[in-house]
């Protein structure tokens, strides 16, 4: 697939060490869960932040989606913990 903007927030951002990057996932990465596995395989802070999917939420092109949502055609994908505003 084409290059996509990846955004990380809260402790996901802190563990990975950056808040934004551009990446080009391989064609076999079809959904958000697949993207998480692909990123976690980089090891280090990625593996630490992305090990437990039950603690992660995602947005594709700024819309909240479940982790089995497709990332085909996505321009921006955000990974973050459950929200805690208010």
């Amino acid at each position, binding site marked *: 697939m084409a290059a996509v903007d990846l*955004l990380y*927030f*809260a*402790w996901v*951002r802190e563990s990975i060490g950056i808040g934004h990057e551009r990446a080009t996932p391989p064609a076999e990465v079809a959904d958000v869960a697949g993207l998480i596995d692909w990123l976690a395989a980089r090891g280090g802070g990625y593996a630490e932040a992305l090990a437990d999917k039950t603690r992660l939420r995602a*947005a594709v092109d*700024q*819309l*909240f989606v479940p982790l089995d949502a497709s990332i085909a055609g996505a321009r921006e994908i*955000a990974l*973050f*913990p*459950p*929200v*805690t*505003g*208010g």
Partner: protein
Amino acid sequence: MIRILVTEAAIDLAAELEGLERAGGGAVASFTGLVRDDGGVEELFLEHYPGATDEALAKLAAEAENRWSLAAATVIHRVGAMTPGERIVFVGTAAAHRSAALDACAFLIDRLKTDAPFWKRETRGQDARWVGERESDRHAADRWKRP
């Protein structure tokens, strides 16, 4: 009339309430959330998802406006560093009658907690930790689901 604001600046309650009173309804309701000191919190830092936050709040406000026929809705959320006692969030509604204004106000703050991309980090001395999700918040948001 919908007013959405995500800001580092302090929230001016009097100005916001006066704005809602000018909307032409007979009832104005509001909720103000303050930073708690929860066991010695010295700083609360609010992170958000720029680009998605405004839209998430505007979507909730539009849903409330439509469901309760509001004359106005205001949602203001602060971001950045705050100390206990400071206002962190303000939700205000104006409607023809009190029940619509009160219900819409409760709906907005309940759903904001589960639907808007904000994250809180508490600092106590050298210890900084991200606040975890609360099940009670999910239940509060769920009660507004329609059958």
